[in-house]
């Protein structure tokens, strides 16, 4: 009798923390497939990729908790990097980065305007915005990658601080800030309330409009920051970045336990989910699958994850 109860408890815990369970699974299976998975080089590489995703993921988490989604993060990330690199030669580095971040804030504000004030469907508006930004990025670079010219920038992107890559340190700072923002501040609590039920939050006196709008601004800002970090790491700005990023980050958020219904989740959970995605990408790359099969598997995984999340909600919701 007791063993059945314990087994049920374990299964529920595993089901809830899908990301941790899956991570453990991948780490257990990988050494059997390819031993070079556990080299320091590979680990550091995965960590750097994950850092960019997690930076963006923090912003997307805030938006998803508030009940919407943000698919323009890929376009913002790409454009931020291009703006930084393009302005590098003529202006000091500081100004370039500020400009890129400002662009992210602006795009986030526009997204927020359409979604919150005009009550458009967040998915389609942010999707269109992301496509638009990609077109702008292509126009600015004429579809060639452009190389960065600032040495300090590149050194920041590839250097390390106390053993961890600089990018990862920045990611941790942002992650901790976002977690504290969501858990300990009034704004964070408002996000959860707005995500749970927008109208009820508004009737309860929470500035729902402002909260949701600000969530989009934060997402835009962090996406731009992620773009700057990515460009620092690669020292190039290309309009081909960020094609699948939006989808990956949003799904990583869901995988980590922040549901699209809004109102639950946290940034560290997203970090775990995105870490899993990065590890998965790396693991798939190491197997004997070619690049296309990798994309296929990722597409299927995304559909499965969202499907499970949706099925979860369907069971919890009351059927009329």
């Amino acid at each position, binding site marked *: 009798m007791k063993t059945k109860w314990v087994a049920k408890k374990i299964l529920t815990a595993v089901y809830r923390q899908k990301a941790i369970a899956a991570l453990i699974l991948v780490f257990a299976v990988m050494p059997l497939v390819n031993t070079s998975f556990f080299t320091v080089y590979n680990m550091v590489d995965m960590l750097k990729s994950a850092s960019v995703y997690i930076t963006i993921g923090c912003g997307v988490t805030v938006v998803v908790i508030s009940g919407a*989604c943000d698919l323009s993060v890929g376009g913002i990330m790409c454009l931020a990097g291009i703006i930084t690199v393009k302005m590098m030669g003529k202006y000091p580095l500081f100004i370039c980065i500020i400009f890129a971040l400002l662009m992210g804030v602006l795009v986030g504000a526009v997204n927020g305007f*359409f979604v919150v004030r*005009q*009550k*458009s*469907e*967040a*998915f*389609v*508006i942010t*999707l*269109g*915005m992301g*496509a*638009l930004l*990609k*077109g*702008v990025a*292509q*126009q600015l670079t*004429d*579809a060639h990658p452009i190389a960065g010219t600032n040495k300090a920038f590149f050194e920041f992107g590839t250097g390390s601080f106390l053993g961890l890559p600089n990018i990862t340190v920045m990611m941790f700072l942002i992650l901790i800030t976002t977690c504290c923002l969501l858990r300990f501040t009034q704004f964070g609590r408002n996000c959860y309330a707005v995500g749970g039920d927008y109208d009820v939050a508004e009737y309860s006196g929470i500035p729902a409009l402002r909260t949701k709008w600000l969530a989009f601004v934060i997402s835009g800002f962090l996406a731009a920051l992620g773009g700057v970090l990515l460009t620092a790491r690669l020292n190039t700005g290309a309009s081909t970045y960020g094609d*699948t990023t939006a*989808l990956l980050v*949003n*799904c990583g958020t869901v995988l980590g336990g922040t549901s*699209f*219904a809004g109102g639950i989740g946290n940034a560290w959970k997203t970090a775990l989910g995105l870490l899993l995605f990065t590890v998965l990408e790396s693991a798939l790359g190491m197997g004997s699958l*070619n690049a*296309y*099969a*990798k*994309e*296929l598997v*990722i*597409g*299927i995984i*995304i*559909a499965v994850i*969202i*499907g*499970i*999340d*949706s*099925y979860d*909600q*369907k069971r919890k*919701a009351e059927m*009329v």
Partner: protein
Amino acid sequence: MKKELNLKNAFFSFIKNYFVGFCIILLVVITMIYQPRFLSASNLLNIIRQLGPLSIVSLGMSFVIFAGYLDLSVAGTISLVAVVTVSLIEPLGQMGAILAGIVIGTAAGALIGAVVLVVGANRKSEALFISYGMGMAYSALALMYSGGVTQKLGENQKIFEVIGKGGWGILSVSLVIFIVCLIILQILQSMTYIGRSVMLAGGNPVASRLSGIPVNAVVVLVYTLSGLLASIGSVVLVSRVTTASPVIGKTYETNAITAVLIGGTSLKGGNGSVMRTVLGVVLISLMSNCMNLLGISSYMQSVVRGLVLILAIWLDSKRNS
């Protein structure tokens, strides 16, 4: 005080309802002034020819939007059907290859509909994500199946040649196919139980389900229809460009959605008509043609298309709020 039914009121209400369409007509007028080549016979013929694939795909997309959903997988479906059809010409012959391609495309659409149904994606955004993810999977399948290679149609592929280039003057074969699909779908939408179910399920799913309308079947049906029409459009596209690239479907989903929205159908679902979509497709083709004639770079064109999409969505939500 009753509003007078005169030309001025009709004009203003037209502008209000079809604002985006009105802007495009303005663009056409401007182009006519600056580029008299626009009115040449070859250009107008070109516009009508261009209508083919996108209009067929948009017809399928309109049904999905009537039901309140969006099908973002058409890019992948088009690419997959294209590569599969061309590769099957050898073993199955032309007609067989076309049929096989259409069957596969329809099955792909049905699969998405089934998945959306099973996971109970009653919040629309999750259904969109699922279709997006599966579209990505189909696109990757197309890449895998073809090995990334663009296949050319052989020399004496008669049927494809007829579809791509044949016809009598203005009535190209692709236009005829489009008109046939249009008539069938218009009849389906306005005069059959199925069509009414789709509109009602889109307008208010809960009330429809309580009234006995098979909302679940409607969801699977619209995605299947979208897959079917996407595969027909893919065959027409392959005939026109005589190659099958595994990324041939790239921008089709956003263009199809834009076409349906410009026509005046609401994203909310439950309203609109197939004829409106035709209007939207014509306007989008005109817009592309005008931008080409005005010499706007292709990147700026995609920026403009994104702007038009956002504008259409914004006006749609303004009308609903």
